[in-house]
Every structure is written in structure tokens, then in C-alpha cells.
């Protein structure tokens, strides 16, 4: 346990030496990465070797209501491992991707806040006191603001940073209110089950859903997510998408675990929000032109899948059906891990593309598999995994959630089974849309011919960037082939979440055909090798390299004539136009010799551009008369605080 404290301190301070070391030298970045990797190693060791009897520590702490209470239970352990693994890999990647030599202005700042962000997350998942939780939460949230705005000389980055800051402030506000109500219900800042008062519980649940949902990026609350992910350095995007947004899931899981008998509608709401996030997240992703923005919308989709599982678990708890809890929560938590692995992998390989070509627009890439074979392979592994296809890890977690939904379908009850009967096809729709989206991205960016000069000049990245990608890709394979390895971890997490069913619990390995999954994965790999060898042998005399694509006999194909990602997605954007509201500029063609013209299309974020901004603007106009309060001098603000305090004291 004290090892964990050492780990958090090491990680949190990893960027400090760099601040005083030479600005141009490589010493600072090496020290920072070494400290962060060491700290992460300590953290992972502390999870594995935590003695079950002594895994709680309480330090005295003078903060009112606060207590420095830390403890690692199975749920914390699961999230801790993910935080440390992905943060360490991202930090190694950052050595080459964001080297001090290339970025002397902001490299040190980035490394400092990167470590702080990791330390904040590690603190909040082990905190057992809501004040300490909020301290960790705020360290994480504010450090993230500074890592997102690493390139703060760019106006676009400042804009998304500001939006992120607003969203995270709003989320924290909800959490303050939520924890205050929790304190009112329990009389302590510890996480304990509140006494039964329905309206208070409802308020706690809704505030938790809003506060944590904002961080997780659930569909109507996702507005900050695409821009922030797209504009941060890629290893920060990987950490944000892989780990940071999961802190929202962690909070939701933790708060839901406090309620042994949740009303039926809680699970229903989480499930519905999950379905909406899943479908609309991937639909918006299909319409994006920016590679990293597209990946960010897929985070919304995957948070949706996780919430389908979590909603199922909450439903199962209300209904008293232990197998739904095990499959739903097990699937959700495994998907938390899986999404961390493959989304970090995708962001890192997208970062390599960005590093090599400087292009984020998918339609300007192309043919990158030839100059960047390993990056391309890594992206392909991530793409197949995120689509939930066997033999990789995404399949396993989706299978668990499917099995839970199927058990709802065959379960008793007149109407309840319809929830499963419609959620499962929705999950299938999400999967099919993800396939369409990722085959599009992979095909347009990595296959065919380069569409621009810079895309053709792409080059493979160095080992410091490739090794973290290889590690993440092998993680995708390991969980996909041998899910039995992670089943005990999930079982103990489920036990920690719903401790009321210690007796009649079935382990996940008995509820789900994990052995068959292993067999299927191995058979797929074997069949692919056999048939691949067959095709290789039967085409060994093939003519290759000398001829171009047949292209129906067209003699002078140009690289810009290739199908672009916008044209690939056009039909699907049309099918979903009721939700996406795509904006198109279609030029008219006039006369016998029409003049040169241009076409452009884009899918703006519906919630942000059509709801949040207009509402914010009108609210801003209404409150314009209050601006005289903002004098811009510290003295005046101190006076306001004094007046408020005096007023509050008089009121009491």
C-alpha cells in the first residue's frame, strides 16, 4: 500500500526535474520518462502484491471533512493497472513523438502536467473519502486542461481548451452537489450505502450521471470530447481516450455500487443512454474528415457500449438476477480495459501518421501501408479490435454484454425482455457501423496510393514509438485469445461491486463460453494461415509489380480519383441525416462551359453547434448587464468574497 503512495509521488513529480534542467537538452525528458515508468512499475506491483488484510491506510489530514483514506479493492485495482500501463507506454512514445528538441517551448510543460494527470487519476481511484476523491479529480481535470492546450499558440487549441475547462467545471459542480447530498444521506464523507430515502437517492444518481457522464462523454454531454482529443498531442489523446474518460465510468460504477436496491429505471436510463451514445457516436464518426476527431467520436461510441453493460448490471441488481450483474458489469469493465488498449493503440498509430506526414485530414492521406508497414499493421489490429471482431479483445467484452442481453431476452417477465431484444440489435448496428467506419479509415489512409505529396513522403517511425504500439497490440491479442486470464480479475471486481451476493455467485468462466472463445480465436488464426499459405503457393507465379490497377481499362488514373473517405461515408451519412444534419455546399453547374467550382461537406457536432452555442450566446446576452460586476481588479473580487462570507454568517 505504501508502495502505491511512492508510485503516485514518483509519477506526479516526474516532470519536476525537467523544469529546472536545460531547456534544449534531452536530460529532462529522459528523467521524466524514467521516473514515470518507475512509478508506474511500482504502482502495478503495489496492485499485485497488496496484502488483502492491510490494503487500507489512513493518514491524518487537516482538511475539514477530509481524511487521507486510501484503499485498493478489485475495482480500483482494475482501473489502476490501466492508468499505469497506458500512461507509461504513452510517456515512452512521447520521447520520440514530442521530443524536447522538436518542441523546446512546450515539451517540459507537457511532461510536467502529463505526470500530474496520471497521479491525479491514480489518487482518485483509490480514494475512500469524497474530499480526497475530489482533490484527485481536480488535479486530473486541471492537469488535463494544460496537456490539451500544449500548443496554446494555436487559436483552435485555445478554443477547445476553454470548452474543455467549462465542461469539466460544470461536471465538478455536479459532483460537489452529489457528494454534499451523499454526506447529507450518510453523515460521513466515506463511501457508504446511504439510508433509504428515495428522492435523495434519485438526486444523487442524477447528479452522478451528469457529473461523471460529462467526463465520460456520454452522448448529449460529449461536447468537449471530440475537439479536445483531436487537438491534444497524440499520446495525450491516447491517455485521455484510453484512461481519463474512464474515470467517469469509474465514478458511476462506484456510486452505483453504493445502492444495493436501485429502482428499475436507473438501469434503464443508463442502458438507453448507452444505446444512444453507441449509435450516434459511431454515426458522427463516419461523417468526420479529421482522423483524430473520428477516433474521438469512437470513444463516445465505446463509452456507450460500456454503459450498456453497466445499465444491464444495474438492472440485474434491481431484478435480483446475479448472472446479469456478472455478465453486464464483467463485460463493461472488460470493455474499459479493451477500449483502453485498442483506442490508445489507434491514437498512437494516428500520431505516427501525423508525425510522419503532418496530415490529420483522412482524404489527403493514402498508400501509407507501404512506407509505414508497422504503423499500418498496428492501426489494422486496433481497427479490427475496436470493431469487436474475433480473434481480438473487443469481441470478448461485447460477447459478455450480448450474453447478458440474451439472458434478459429468455428471462421471465412480460415486458422486461423487450429491453434486451432491442438493445442487442442496437449493439449489432453499432458493430456494423464501426466496421464501415474503420474499413473506411484504414482503406483510405493506408491503402491505395498517396493522395498528396506529403502523404507519399511518409516514413516509418522509430522504435520508441513502435514498441509501445507493439505492446498494446499484443495486449489486444492476449485478451482476445485467452480471456480466461482476465476472468478472475473481473469476478473479484463484480464481487466488490455487489457484495450482497457473496454466496450464490457463479464465476464468469461458467457464465460465458470463454474456452470456446479461445478455441475460436485459435481456429481463426490457424485457418487464416492455412488458406493464406494455399493462396501464396497457388499464386507464386503471379505477375506483380509491373502493372497498375485495371480500373475498368482507364488508362490514366490519378491518385485523386480514388474513392475518398467522404465519398465512402456519404450514403451512411445520408441514412443518418435525421441525426447528423450534415452541412453540404453543392455548387450549381451553369452554362455550356461551367466555371471551376468546389464542393464541400461537413458534419458539425449537433449538440455543440446547434444547442450549446446558441443557448450560451443568448444566455450571455441576457447576463450582459451583470458585467459591471467584473471590474478586473483583485481588490474588488476580495471584497465580493468578504461580503458573501459576512452575509452567510449573518444568515446562519
Amino acid at each position, binding site marked *: 500500500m505504501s508502495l502505491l503512495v511512492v508510485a503516485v509521488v514518483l509519477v506526479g513529480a516526474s516532470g519536476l526535474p525537467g523544469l529546472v534542467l536545460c531547456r534544449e537538452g534531452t536530460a529532462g525528458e529522459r528523467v521524466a520518462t524514467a521516473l514515470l515508468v518507475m512509478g508506474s512499475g511500482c504502482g502495478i506491483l503495489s496492485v499485485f502484491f497488496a496484502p488483502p488484510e492491510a490494503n487500507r491506510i489512513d493518514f491524518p489530514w487537516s482538511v475539514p471533512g477530509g481524511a487521507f483514506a486510501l484503499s485498493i479493492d478489485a475495482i480500483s485495482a482494475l482501473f489502476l493497472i490501466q492508468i499505469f500501463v497506458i500512461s507509461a507506454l504513452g510517456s515512452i512514445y512521447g520521447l520520440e513523438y514530442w521530443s524536447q528538441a522538436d518542441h523546446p517551448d512546450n515539451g517540459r510543460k507537457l511532461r510536467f502536467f502529463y505526470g500530474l494527470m496520471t497521479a491525479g487519476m491514480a489518487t482518485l481511484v483509490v480514494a475512500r473519502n469524497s474530499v480526497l476523491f475530489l482533490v484527485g479529480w481536480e488535479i486530473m481535470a486541471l492537469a488535463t486542461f494544460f496537456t490539451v492546450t500544449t500548443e496554446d499558440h494555436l487559436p483552435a487549441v485555445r478554443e477547445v481548451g476553454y470548452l474543455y475547462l467549462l465542461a469539466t467545471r460544470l461536471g465538478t459542480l455536479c459532483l460537489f452537489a452529489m457528494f454534499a447530498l451523499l454526506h447529507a444521506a450518510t453523515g460521513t464523507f466515506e463511501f457508504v450505502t446511504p439510508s433509504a430515502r428515495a428522492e435523495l437517492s434519485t438526486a444523487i444518481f442524477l447528479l452522478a450521471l451528469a457529473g461523471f457522464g460529462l467526463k465520460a462523454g456520454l452522448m448529449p454531454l460529449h461536447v468537449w470530447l471530440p475537439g479536445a482529443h483531436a487537438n491534444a498531442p497524440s499520446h495525450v489523446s491516447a491517455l485521455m481516450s484510453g484512461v481519463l474518460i474512464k474515470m467517469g465510468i469509474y465514478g458511476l460504477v462506484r456510486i452505483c455500487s453504493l445502492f444495493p436496491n436501485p429502482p428499475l429505471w436507473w438501469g434503464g436510463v443508463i442502458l438507453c443512454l448507452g444505446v444512444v451514445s453507441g449509435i450516434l457516436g459511431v454515426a458522427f464518426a463516419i461523417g468526420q474528415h479529421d482522423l483524430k476527431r473520428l477516433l474521438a467520436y469512437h470513444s463516445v461510441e465505446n463509452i456507450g457500449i460500456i454503459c450498456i453493460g453497466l445499465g444491464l448490471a444495474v438492472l440485474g441488481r434491481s431484478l435480483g438476477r446475479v448472472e446479469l450483474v456478472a455478465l453486464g458489469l464483467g463485460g463493461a469493465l472488460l470493455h474499459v480495459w479493451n477500449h483502453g488498449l485498442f483506442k490508445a493503440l489507434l491514437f498512437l498509430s494516428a500520431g505516427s501518421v501525423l508525425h510522419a506526414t503532418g496530415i490529420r485530414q483522412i482524404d489527403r492521406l493514402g498508400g501509407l501501408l507501404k512506407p509505414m508497414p508497422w504503423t499500418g499493421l498496428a492501426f489494422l489490429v486496433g481497427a479490427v479490435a475496436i470493431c469487436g471482431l*474475433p480473434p481480438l479483445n473487443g469481441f470478448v467484452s461485447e460477447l459478455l454484454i450480448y*450474453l447478458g442481453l440474451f439472458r434478459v431476452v429468455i428471462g421471465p417477465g412480460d415486458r422486461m425482455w423487450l429491453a434486451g*431484444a432491442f438493445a442487442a440489435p442496437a449493439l449489432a448496428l453499432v458493430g456494423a457501423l464501426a466496421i*464501415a467506419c474503420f474499413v*473506411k479509415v484504414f482503406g483510405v489512409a493506408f*491503402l491505395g496510393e498517396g493522395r498528396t505529396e506529403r502523404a507519399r513522403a511518409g516514413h516509418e517511425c522509430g522504435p520508441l514509438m513502435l514498441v509501445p504500439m507493439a505492446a498494446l497490440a499484443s495486449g489486444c491479442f492476449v485478451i482476445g485469445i485467452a480471456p480466461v486470464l482476465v476472468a478472475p480479475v473481473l469476478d473479484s471486481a463484480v464481487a466488490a461491486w455487489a457484495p450482497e451476493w457473496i454466496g450464490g455467485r457463479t464465476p464468469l468462466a461458467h457464465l460465458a463460453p470463454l474456452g470456446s472463445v479461445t478455441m475460436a480465436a485459435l481456429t481463426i488464426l490457424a485457418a487464416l494461415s492455412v488458406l493464406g499459405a494455399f493462396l501464396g503457393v497457388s499464386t507464386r507465379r503471379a505477375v506483380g509489380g509491373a502493372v497498375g*490497377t485495371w480500373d475498368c481499362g482507364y488508362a490514366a488514373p490519378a491518385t485523386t*480519383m480514388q474513392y475518398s473517405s467522404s465519398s465512402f461515408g456519404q450514403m451512411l451519412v445520408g441514412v443518418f441525416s435525421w441525426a447528423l444534419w450534415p452541412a453540404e455546399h453543392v455548387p450549381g453547374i451553369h452554362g455550356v462551359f461551367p466555371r471551376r467550382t468546389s464542393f464541400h461537406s461537413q458534419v458539425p457536432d449537433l449538440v455543440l453547434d446547434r444547442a450549446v452555442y446558441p443557448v450560451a450566446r443568448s444566455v450571455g446576452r441576457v447576463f450582459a448587464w451583470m458585467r459591471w460586476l467584473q471590474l478586473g481588479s483583485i481588490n474588488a473580487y476580495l471584497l465580493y468574497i468578504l461580503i458573501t462570507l459576512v452575509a452567510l454568517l449573518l444568515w446562519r
Partner: protein
Amino acid sequence: MPPVDFIVHGALVLLLPPLLLGVITKVKAAFAGRVGAPLLQPYHDLIKLLRKSSVFSRTTTWVFRAGPVVGLATALLAALLIPLGDRAAPVSFEGDLVLFAYLLGLGRFFTVAAALDTGSAFEGMGGAREATFSCLTEPALFLCLLVLVRASGSLSLSGMLGPSLAGSWPHAAASFIAVVASLLIVILAETSRIPFDDPSTHLELTMIHEVMVLDHGGPALGMILYGAAIKLFLLGAIVVRIAVPYDGVDPWSGRAVFVGGMLLLAVVIGVVESVMARLRLLQIPSLLVTACVLSAFAVVLLAR
């Protein structure tokens, strides 16, 4: 599973699919007043393709060759999960329907990727259509399978399509009829048949599946055609089993009824292809949404 069952299952899966294509062609020829190609022509075509040499464009990478390999491998593995007639499948476990659907998804991923690897706009167009339309067939397929899950109380394909099926018909007839209709639409769309796609047109701009594989030749094209035939066979096996829930008194009568049902399905597809025109591409999504709604009705009808 006894070895005899396993061998017969394998033989049916490996040998029967091209015959279905032959029957479809024959029926279409009969409607057009022609003699038509021999029933066994698809076998000859496959053997011919396997002996031919190949040409690979300089644009392509290993992904172009992976497409046919993954497409055929996933179809063959999916065949291990589907029960043929009243005989259980060689491999069966809870949730194998998810593996079945996702195996076909894996095949689709690589087939479309191989199409995009050529860098040709024609192939890209075909790939985009294939990916788009299967987004709409996937929910329909799952809704249909969930009707069977609810009716049988089993989570594996062999259980869902097992002996309990005939007993479920009387009280779920309306649902089952909707499921059969919806699945027929799904089959026509997934296997690129009229009214969705015309495999024999000469206009690349209007094709879906055929245009994706324009640049493949020789053994690779053979693998693609064979894989597509197996996919038709597998989806057909589900719908034939639901429509003809006959449990044979001995293994062979059950198998004979199943093979007869499959041939009948091929005739039905041939008739549909002969009497219908291709839909406009932009109307295809509406028909697929109809299939989804139909299967959603099947679910709701079961909830009465």
C-alpha cells in the same frame, strides 16, 4: 458429435453451395426461354479459376491478398456453427450466434479493405455500398435470431434451430412468418442478388459485390466466389430450417428434406431474380429498413 455427422456436415457445406448457384442460373435461364449453363457449371468455373495465374497491381499490398483468404476462412468457420436441417452443428456454445455474425463481419472488413487496396474508384464504390448495406442488414439479422432465442429459450444456434422449433410454430406463427420474410430480404442483400445487386450486369457503376472484386483474378477470385456461395448457403440454411422445421425419424430423411429445402430456396431466389428489376441504389436502404421493421414486428408479436 459422431464422426459420421461431422463428415456429412462438412461434405454438405463444402459441396452443396456452388450447386445452389447453378440452380439459380438454370431457373433464370428457364424464365428467359434459354437452355442455360449446366447445373454443375459453377464447379467447373471454380476449378478453372484455381488453375489460372494471377496479376497483382503495383498499388496493392498484402491486404489485397488477405481479403479472399479472410473471406473464405470466416465463411468456412461460420459453417461450423450452423445446424443443417435437424442435425446439430459440430460446434455449439452459448452465444455462438454472435460469433457467427461477427465472423461474417470479419470477412466483410477484409473484403472491403482489399477492394480499397486497389486504389480504384470503382472498387471503393462497391466497398462503400457493401459496408453501408450490411449496417442495415445486421440489426435485422439479430432481431430475427432474437425471436428464435426467445421462442426456444436457448442461446446457441443449434438449440434455437433445434427440435423445439416445430413446437414453437403454433403459438409464434406470425412472428416466424415475419422472420422468414425478413431473412429472405437479408439473404438477397447479403449475397448481392436482385433486387439489390445484379451479378450479371456489365455496368460496373451500378454493381455492389461484383465491382469490389474487379481486380481479383485466378485462385483469389475463386476463393471469393466460393466464400460468397458458402455465405448464401449458411444464411439459407437458417431460413430453410425455420420455414421447414421437419425433424426426421432417422438422420437421412432429415438431411434429404434439408437439401430439398435448400434447392427450393435456390429456385425461389431464381424466380425473384427473374421477375423483379433491380432497385435504384438510393431505394435499397428503404427496403433494408423494411426488413428491420419487419423483424422488429416479429419481436413485438412474440411479446403479446
